Structures are given as structure tokens and as C-alpha cells.
């Protein structure tokens, strides 16, 4: 086999310019795919992190049916006080979970004493909320950027609402809500900070302390609308969700029919579709790479066979078996693909390193000046390289098969 490689490599060297052109074409394809995957993956990961770390969390736990009717924020679908300790115990027992935060969510009226509008209130324990959503503090554009912003009696007001109402840090506002028994209650709050939306203009989520929410809603027990969970490794969120389900004893029936529901961020956020689109784009970019490799290798190998017909006739005449002639051309295709992949990977990694060094910035939502830090998983590099090599060999099959099937007498007559 070593000799076949030696002859194949020499044959490639025989047509230096053509081989170099083919290798550079393959290398360019690999480079493009690697850089594209690295950049899009890093932007995607950043966006997902922005969403999960600033308001959504990696997982959310609700009472069955709550998510389906989440627009009305139904208080009668809160997790029962008895269920919460069991959930907390389960979460505490899973090592992959870093933090979690309980929320009471309800619809309310927001007033600055002259105007009134509707608002979505999140009652949270600030330490737990900021631990579960570490980027939430960075969304506070004015006011205190600490857990003190959500001390009892204080409120974080969404930016657009604050602008519309002319509310400023230090102002007093009123929140009025109806509890699940139908009685109305209100409470005044000090505006402690203005909260930017995580994903751009919009958003009507205000934050108050958990105990204030219970007071407004006149809750006797510790009811919870949702529990937001932060995991140590986001790519493993599905496995963690499954562990939570198992820990809570949720079978298929309970999951669908009631009880408790565990949802990952991708089941809750429409951004998951955008992330999927990025994955689909990456897939099609990889298809383009396959096309580039397939066409260039096929082209160069067909030419190689046609140019070496007499040589094929000679080696067949002296007794070389068809399968060895086949392997000779397959190895040539393999070497082209391998060299192209290696060059492409090296240059691609160099470009990715260069992008990291050059610190290119971009904006997402309210976040500006974010530094592009593309990274690529070793598996992606290996996959792209293997794909190129396999396609190279496959593209060489037809010309190699043609060469191996040549009748020596016809090939020797070829001019």
C-alpha cells in the first residue's frame, strides 16, 4: 500500500499546477466552512447565552398547562406550595444545575398616578434571580445594579414603559392586581432601576420582590408561577431537563396531562427557530463544500485517467490487477482530499485565531460593542475533514473504476 501512495503522490506532483489548483479549491472550501461555522456558532451561542442568562434561563418548570396559557398569566395554574419544596429538593440533587430562581408572575395595572397601563410583574428573590440569570444586572440601564434594586418596596421598570410614563429612578409608582379569588389589591413601589429588554425594543416585564408579589396577591402559602433554572453547561440542557423530569417522577402521561412540566429554553423561545435556521444554513454551506470537492476531484481525476490511458495500458499489460489500478486512482483522490483538508484546516484555524486577535465587535439587542470570539469544536474540524476526504474518494470512484476496466490492448493503442 505504501508503494501505491508513493506512485499516487508522484502522479499528483507530475501535474503540479492542476493538483495545486484542486488542493487550493478544496482548502478554500474547508476554510470557508470552518470560519462560517465558527463565526455563526459563536454568534448563535452568544445570542442563546444572552437570552438564557438574562431572562429565560436554560430550563423552566411550571405546573402542567401553564405554558399553554402563559399569555394570561393564570394564577390558578401556579405550582402548589406543597410541590415547590419537592422541586427544590430535586434541583439541589442534580450536579449539572448551577442555580435556580422561583418567580410569581401576574398581570397588573401600572400607574404613575396620572396614567395607567398594563404590565407583567415578576416577583423574584433578587439573590436567586441574579444567580440564575447572571446577565440580568447588565440590563439595568439606570439605577442600582445590584440585588438592592429588588429589595422589598422597590421595582425595576421596563424601559419603554418608563419612557412612556416619564418614570425615573426614585419615582413612586403603583401596581394594582387582582388575585385568584377576584379581589383587587395595590401597592406602591419606588422605581429602583430601568430595565432594558434583552432582545431589543419592547417588553413589559417589571420586577419586584417575591414577598411584595405575595402581598399584592394576598397569598398565604408559597405559590410559584415558574422556576427558572441555570445549568452549568448549556449544550447539555436536554440531559439536565431529562434528569429533572426523572427526579420529579414525571412520566409521559404526567408530562402531557398535568402535574409538572419541564421545558428547555428552545421550547419556550422563538429564537430557537433562528438558531435552527443557522444550523440549516451551516448544513447547506457544508453541502456546497461537498459539491466543490466532488466536482473538482471528479474533474481532475477524469482528466488524469484520460491523459494516462497508455500508462494504464502498460501497467495492466505487465499484469497489474484491476483492483490495484482502481486503488491507485482512489489513493490519488484521497491524497488530494487529505492535502486540501489539512491545508484548509490549518488556514481556517489561522483565520479563526486572527479573528479572535482582531477583536471585531458587533451588536445584539441592547448589547453593543460585543466582541466576536469565534471558536470551533474539534468535532466540527474532524467532521469537515472527514467529509472532504470521503467525498474525494467517492468522486474518484468513477474515474478509477473506468481506469481499472480498461482493456490493456485498447489502452496501449491510445494515442
Amino acid at each position: 500500500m505504501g508503494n501505491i501512495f508513493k506512485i499516487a503522490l508522484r502522479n499528483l506532483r507530475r501535474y503540479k499546477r492542476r493538483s495545486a489548483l484542486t488542493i487550493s479549491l478544496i482548502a478554500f472550501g474547508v476554510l470557508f466552512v470552518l470560519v462560517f461555522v465558527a463565526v455563526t456558532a459563536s454568534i448563535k451561542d452568544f445570542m442563546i447565552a444572552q437570552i438564557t442568562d438574562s431572562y429565560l434561563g436554560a430550563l423552566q418548570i411550571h405546573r402542567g398547562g401553564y405554558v399553554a396559557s402563559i399569555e394570561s398569566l393564570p394564577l390558578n395554574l401556579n405550582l402548589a406550595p406543597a410541590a415547590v419544596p419537592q422541586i427544590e429538593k430535586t434541583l439541589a440533587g442534580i450536579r449539572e444545575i448551577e442555580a435556580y430562581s422561583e418567580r410569581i408572575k401576574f398581570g397588573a395595572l401600572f400607574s404613575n398616578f396620572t396614567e395607567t397601563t398594563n404590565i407583567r410583574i415578576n416577583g423574584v428573590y433578587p439573590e436567586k434571580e441574579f444567580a440564575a440569570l447572571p446577565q440580568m444586572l447588565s440590563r439595568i440601564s439606570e439605577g442600582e445594579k445590584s440585588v438592592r434594586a429588588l429589595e422589598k418596596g422597590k421595582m425595576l421598570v421596563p424601559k419603554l414603559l418608563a419612557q412612556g410614563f416619564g418614570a425615573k429612578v426614585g419615582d413612586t409608582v403603583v401596581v394594582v392586581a387582582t388575585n385568584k379569588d377576584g379581589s383587587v389589591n395595590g401597592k406602591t413601589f419606588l422605581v429602583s432601576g430601568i430595565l432594558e429588554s434583552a432582545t431589543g425594543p419592547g417588553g413589559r416585564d417589571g420586577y419586584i420582590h417575591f414577598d411584595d408579589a405575595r402581598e399584592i396577591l394576598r397569598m398565604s402559602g408559597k405559590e410559584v408561577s415558574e422556576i427558572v433554572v441555570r445549568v452549568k453547561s448549556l449544550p447539555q440542557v436536554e440531559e439536565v431537563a431529562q434528569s429533572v423530569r426523572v427526579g420529579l417522577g414525571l412520566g409521559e402521561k404526567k408530562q402531557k396531562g398535568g402535574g409538572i412540566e419541564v421545558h428547555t429554553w428552545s421550547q419556550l423561545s422563538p429564537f430557537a427557530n433562528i438558531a435552527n435556521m443557522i444550523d440549516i444554513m451551516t448544513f447547506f454551506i457544508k453541502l456546497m463544500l461537498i459539491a466543490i470537492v466532488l466536482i473538482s476531484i471528479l474533474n481532475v481525476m477524469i482528466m488524469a485517467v484520460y491523459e494516462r490511458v497508455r500508462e494504464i495500458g502498460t501497467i495492466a499489460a505487465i499484469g497489474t490487477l484491476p483492483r490495484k489500478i482502481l486503488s491507485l486512482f482512489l489513493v490519488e483522490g484521497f491524497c488530494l482530499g487529505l492535502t486540501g483538508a489539512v491545508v484548509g484546516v490549518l488556514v481556517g484555524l489561522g483565520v479563526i485565531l486572527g479573528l479572535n486577535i482582531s477583536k471585531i465587535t458587533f451588536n445584539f439587542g441592547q448589547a453593543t460593542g460585543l466582541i466576536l470570539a469565534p471558536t470551533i469544536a474539534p468535532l466540527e474540524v474532524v467532521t469537515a475533514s472527514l467529509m472532504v476526504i470521503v467525498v474525494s474518494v467517492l468522486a474518484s470512484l468513477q474515474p478509477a473504476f473506468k481506469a481499472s476496466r480498461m482493456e490493456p490492448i485498447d489502452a496501449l493503442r491510445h494515442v
Partner: protein
Amino acid sequence: MSLIVAKSLSKTYATDSVEVKALQEVSFDIEAGSFLAFIGPSGSGKTTLLNLVGCLDKPTSGELQVAGMDVVTLSRRQAAEFRGQNIGFIFQSFNLIAVLTAFENVEYPLVMVQELRPAERRDRVLKALKAVGMLEQKNQMPEQLSGGQKQRVAIARALVTQPKLVLADEPTANLDHETAYMILRLMKQMRDNFGITFIFSTHDTRIIGEAEIVCTLEDGKLLRCEAGNG
């Protein structure tokens, strides 16, 4: 002892509308160790006959035995294996592999066909190159060799597998007169040294005298075989 036995060998090529009888009812016996030339004008059937004997083609009818093997019934793969073990080829245009050195060209059939171990390969290749006087040029590429040198390397390649038979189709056609003589004498010397049967075709009347047996073909028919001057 007969190395090659041909009985009523015929070969007909059929094109769209024309049938060409390249060989017609040719019969002959060739003894092992012969140094034989098939002569005749272009189109007389020399190359066709060598192709049949070399198992590169099959006759339309007739019987052909080479080294005791009925080669007419061999499959494509069997024919390739038989050629690799029993027959060496020398071509008019030398047909050396351009990307390999002289040494590697000679080594090629031992690597790709006979799959010998490196030490044995090297030993055999050096002996073959020495026998044809090309030891000093062993590391040169074909493009660096003259026509005569290329043909010497080709002879070494044909001999290195230790075949029973070497077939040479117009081996001197691309060589000048002096070199042509030299190559013929070299082939005969190899026959003498290794006992290998050499059969070559030529229409070059200047070198026919080097053959020990001369068989004349005309219009696909074997007219006669007679002792040559070689």
C-alpha cells in the same frame, strides 16, 4: 519442449460494416529459449499475434497454449495474473512510467504484480539493471534517458519478474540503427544468460538478421518459419 503451441489461430475484427481478418488459421510451435522474429509489412498481423500470445487479446477461433496453459479460456483477471507471472513486455515506445525512476520502473512489477519483499526486490532490480548496463542511471527519471537507455530499462523491467517469455512489439522502431542493433544484441544476450524465450515483431529489414528464427506473416497468414542469421 514447446513453450507456445498455436493451432488454427484466427482473429477477426468487426467494425460497423467491415470485417477485418487480422489472422487466418495460423499454427506454429515455439520452443522454449527461442529468439524468434515475426516479420511482415504493416497490417500483416504481427501485433495481433503478439497480443494473442501475450494474453492481451483472445482469438476468434483456434487453440493457443502458452507455458502449458490454455490461455484462450482465461478470464480477464486470470489473464492479468498469468501475464504478471509468465510474460514480460517490451513496447515500441518504451512505455516507462514517467513519474518513476529507472530503478522504480524496473521494480514496479515486483511491487504491484509479484508483491515481493523489499530486500528481494532490490536485489533483483539491481541485477536486472546491471544486466542491461543501466546500473549507473538507476536514479534517473525516464525524461533524463535517451531512447536506447529507456529501452534498456524496459528490457530490465520485462526480465525482472523472471518470465518464461518476453514479447517485444517493434522494440527498435523508435531507435536509430546502431542503437537498434545494440538492443537486439542485448535481448539475445539476456536470452543466453537467463534462458528466456524472446519473441519480437519487426518490419525493419536491417535487424531481421539478428533473429535465430524468422516467421513471415502476410495478410494475416503465416507464410513460413525459417532459420535466421542470428
